[in-house]
């Protein structure tokens, strides 16, 4: 039972991460290759707070806010550079986060932070993570239907045209980065308390690519598709034990094959097969 609970919890955390990235990259069109940095920021901030004796809910909130505030900073950077430049800058943000954490003794450097207090049992974390994931999915569906989602679409498709019709492009980009990175911070806070040990390498470039893989394989821009992608990629190595050794080989090959044959991901395939457009 414990095993299934922890798989379910990780699937939920991945849904949170992927939904957050999809808000930034799928809805608002801002490619980010550094999403794991915000996962890490949330984890480190919440862990430090908890270790210092801050109550659990406040520690989690702290992680959300720290990640979200740094997300706003990166959002401002996104105003200066576009598309290809932005992809490289966000990749750089990931390396900068990792390189900075690794050198800070007060963050445990390479050894990370251990003995993080854990106030919940396995059921508690599963309920928390799944509850948070469901809430984020609902938020994502709402954003898509709201005028914010429509404006994100305008920014993603042509930001100059969006400006000329009075859309505050900068404001929307920053909002997308804030919501998306705050969600990653939430996942980080839950992760840190559940595992009670965090190390820098958990939040490396490969982690960013894994989150991106979930979004892209599920279908960038589609909430249901992204949820499916996140759950599928979490379960795959578990269901097929032999894959675990070749996990990255399979991720990489899937990314390549999806881009080559169905850039719309699972959602795109469903749309082609059944003519239904997933939200």
């Amino acid at each position: 039972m414990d095993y299934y609970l922890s798989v379910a919890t990780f699937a939920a955390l991945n849904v949170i991460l992927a939904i957050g990235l999809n808000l930034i990259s799928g809805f608002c069109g801002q490619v980010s290759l550094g999403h794991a940095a915000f996962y890490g920021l949330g984890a480190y901030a919440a862990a430090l707070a908890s270790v210092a004796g801050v109550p659990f809910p406040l520690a989690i909130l702290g992680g959300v806010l720290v990640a979200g505030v740094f997300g706003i900073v990166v959002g401002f950077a996104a105003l200066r550079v576009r598309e290809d430049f932005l992809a490289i800058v966000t990749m750089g943000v990931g390396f900068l986060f990792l390189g900075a954490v690794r050198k800070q003794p007060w963050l445990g450097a390479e050894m990370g932070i251990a003995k993080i207090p854990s106030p919940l049992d396995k059921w508690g974390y599963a309920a928390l993570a799944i509850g948070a994931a469901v809430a984020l999915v609902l938020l994502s569906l709402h954003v898509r239907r709201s005028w914010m989602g429509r404006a994100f679409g305008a920014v993603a498709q042509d930001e100059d045209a969006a400006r000329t019709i009075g859309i505050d492009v900068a404001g929307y980009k920053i909002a997308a980065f804030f919501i998306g990175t705050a969600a990653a911070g939430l996942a980080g806070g839950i992760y840190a308390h559940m595992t009670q040990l965090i190390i820098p390498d958990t939040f490396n470039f490969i982690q960013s690519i894994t989150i991106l893989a979930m979004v892209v394989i599920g279908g960038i821009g589609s909430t249901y598709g992204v949820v499916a992608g996140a759950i599928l990629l979490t379960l795959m190595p578990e269901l097929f034990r032999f894959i675990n050794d070749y996990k990255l080989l399979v991720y990489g090959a899937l990314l390549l094959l999806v881009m080559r044959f169905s850039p719309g991901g699972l959602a795109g395939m469903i749309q082609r097969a059944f003519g239904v457009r997933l939200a």
Partner: protein
Amino acid sequence: MMLLAGERLSIAFGGVHAVEDVSLAVAEGELVGLIGPNGAGKTTLLRLLTGILAPDSGRVLFEGRDITRMPIHRRAQLGFALTHQIVRPFRDMTLAENVMMAAAGGVTARPWRALAKVDARGARERAMALLARLGIDDAADKLARNVPLGYLKRMQAARALALEPRLLLLDEPLAGLNAAEATRFADLIVELNAGGITILLVEHNLGEVTRIARRLLVLHNGSLLAEGEPRAVMARQDVRDAYLGEEAHA
């Protein structure tokens, strides 16, 4: 008071003066044409007025208020609309959705307010009315990427009108249209102006622009060469030389 004024605007690219010391003013209700041979600096001047470029020196005033450094979206919110020379639709939206985006200006002005609102019926009604007014409501639910240029040009005008602008800046609205389409579109511009919208248009089609504009500004080598009643301006020797010079070089 002038609705729009440029005061002593200058900008240089790599040491070359694209626009030098140009002042112009457009009064409320006017329909003004801005013409000039290729490379005269028309598009650059328009970009200075719209805020896509910031001038090296000089000011842009809207109703006497200095908007030189104001971001483009805030100008749009003030009632300062423009269309691009090359149409810029949101390609993966329908024509109706394109216009709705502009029609919902009050809602989308702030991201957090936009998050709270889902209802799109009002915006859709206004968008459909505008599409009908421009005669393209038959294609309202077609994706922008799938309709011909003539439709996109009119959609772009509808999108600008959805902002309920007081001032409309049109960058070569007739480019790419055939003669009949151009005449019809020019008539529409006159109609919009008669409806109370002040219009400044940059145009290459001299026949149409002299027909519809009530005043012409002629730009040459980045400076204002002539200004006045269209027929009088076009009769001036220096204006003819500017255009003929272009042909002699071509």
